[in-house]
């Protein structure tokens, strides 16, 4: 979109190819279950943050409710596998479908709200979703329910989940890359800047927002379903935990809102950090350190870690040719 994107395209491509190779080979080399588990968590969060970023980062519609799609995805898989004997693959795909339907219903109503009102509405719906599910006795109420075990042996078990989660994260990322280059992504950016002007420019803002919201619900639905099958147990408190929404927001802000790399950096850093901190300094300090890091990033890199290079470069650069206009004429 901007000229900077074309700088040294090959280094970027080689880096991406190497990263993909690393991800594919990782479980073959590292066979410790613990590290595979961390990697799966990272992929889950990458999927969630990438998805959240579409309405949140591109269009400026901050959602606290994406955990709804994650939780409903989990319960869809639970219901289909436990009560209807559906296989895991179809159940997980159905979880994505359920998320789409929910996003269509909920999005076309809530996206009429703007800014903070939208954020509160999404939060409310996520909480309502949790309460409703928690009060259905067939689904185990607050205690939740167990899911059928995967057919794989304990030693091998993590590997299929690893690849499935990696695939979902990659699909979510690739989707965002394509959307970013499409009219949709481009118009969402305009809409974030000035929604009325976007409407005055001929953009059907409602349609664009709802479509974006639907796409952003699909992947959390899928990954929520996958996660449920992976853990083997779902309950309202865990699967609808507002912590998911909060973590996603923190990771996005840390990595860089509205970018493609930001969610990857944010999710990876925070999941890894959380693991490292919990056995080095203990979990009681962990959240404090989180907060500190976030405060520092917000102050010094308001556009996230991804903007690090750019920020350093612009500080070093001599004040370049100024637009005479910006300083003298701009009077409003």
């Amino acid at each position: 979109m901007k000229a900077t994107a074309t700088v040294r395209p090959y280094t970027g491509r080689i880096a991406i190819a190497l990263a993909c190779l690393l991800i594919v080979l990782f479980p073959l080399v590292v066979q410790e279950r613990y590290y595979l588990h961390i990697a799966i968590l990272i992929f889950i969060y990458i999927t969630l943050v990438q998805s959240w970023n579409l309405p949140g980062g591109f269009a400026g519609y901050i959602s606290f409710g994406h955990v709804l799609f994650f939780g409903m995805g989990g319960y869809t898989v639970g219901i289909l596998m436990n009560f209807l004997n559906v296989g895991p693959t179809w159940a997980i795909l159905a979880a994505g479908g359920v998320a789409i339907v929910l996003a269509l219903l909920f999005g076309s109503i809530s996206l009429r709200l703007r800014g903070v009102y939208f954020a509160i509405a999404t939060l409310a719906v996520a909480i309502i979703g949790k309460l409703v599910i928690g009060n259905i006795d067939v689904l185990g109420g607050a205690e939740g329910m167990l899911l059928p075990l995967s057919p794989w042996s304990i030693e091998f078990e993590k590997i299929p989940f690893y690849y499935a989660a990696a695939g979902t994260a990659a699909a979510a990322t690739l989707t965002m890359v394509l959307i970013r280059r499409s009219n949709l992504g481009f118009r969402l950016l305009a809409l974030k800047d000035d929604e009325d002007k976007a409407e005055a420019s001929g953009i059907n803002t409602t349609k664009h927002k709802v479509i974006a919201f639907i796409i952003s619900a699909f992947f959390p639905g899928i990954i929520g379903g996958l996660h449920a099958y992976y853990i083997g147990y779902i309950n309202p408190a865990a699967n609808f935990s507002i912590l998911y929404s909060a973590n996603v927001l923190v990771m996005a802000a840390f990595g860089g809102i509205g970018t493609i790399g930001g969610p990857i950096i944010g999710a990876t850093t925070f999941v890894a950090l959380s693991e490292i901190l919990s056995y080095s300094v203990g979990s009681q300090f962990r959240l404090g350190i989180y907060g500190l890091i976030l405060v520092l990033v917000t102050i010094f890199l308001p556009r996230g870690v991804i903007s690090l290079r750019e920020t350093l470069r612009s500080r070093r650069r001599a004040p370049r040719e100024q637009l005479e206009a910006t300083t003298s004429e701009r009077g409003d």
Partner: protein
Amino acid sequence: MQATQERAATALRLDRVSKRFGGIRAVDEVSFDVQDNSICGLIGPNGSGKTTLFNLVSGFYKLDRGEIYYGSERIDRLRPHRRVERGIIRTFQITRVFPHLSVLDNLMIPTCDNRLAALFHSALGTRRRTRGEELLSLLGLKRLRDEPAGNLSFGQQKLVELAMSFMIETRLIMLDEPSAGINPTLVNQVRDWIRAEQKNGRTFLIIEHNMHVVMDICDKIIVLHHGKKLAEGAPAQIQDDPVVLEAYLGG
């Protein structure tokens, strides 16, 4: 007036359009026509309802009473983007560009295509890009094409916004004070540009306080005062109308 353009079709027709805000009648029973391929000026003191009228025609306000026709189609219940699809586009009095998008990207935003398939097309259409770059050269803004539009001066943003309205196949362009806040040389440039686009078949409805510009380019002028239409006619007629003079200068 009517006699000379008898054969010309009507681009826009307002029929007893009214809008009130609480006790204020911002637009009160206003009716007029804008002939196809003409330049129509909308003048009046501050608070006379000009911008409200723009908001009604572009769909940002719902009217209380009356009807608005574009060609033969009634449009007063369409959402703003639907009116753009029909061929009406507007600019804002307080200039509005997309500050974080580059100048060239700003020009790529206006659209008439909201079909689902179009959402997933690449945003980098080359034909539109060429058109955008042409317009920027014309405006002398070419060297700023990759600059975020928010960094531009007020006058430059005004030009960008104007250029945005020329990017799509719009027939009726509504400009809210196109010459406000830009330097005199540029005012002449904007004026020439509007004339050129008129020759390309476009119709203009223009709110303007600069009387030189208004008298110079408009085929017809409508004067609003306290939300009511005070006068309507050719520039020469309006200039000498005692009622208009009193509304503007007297009291």
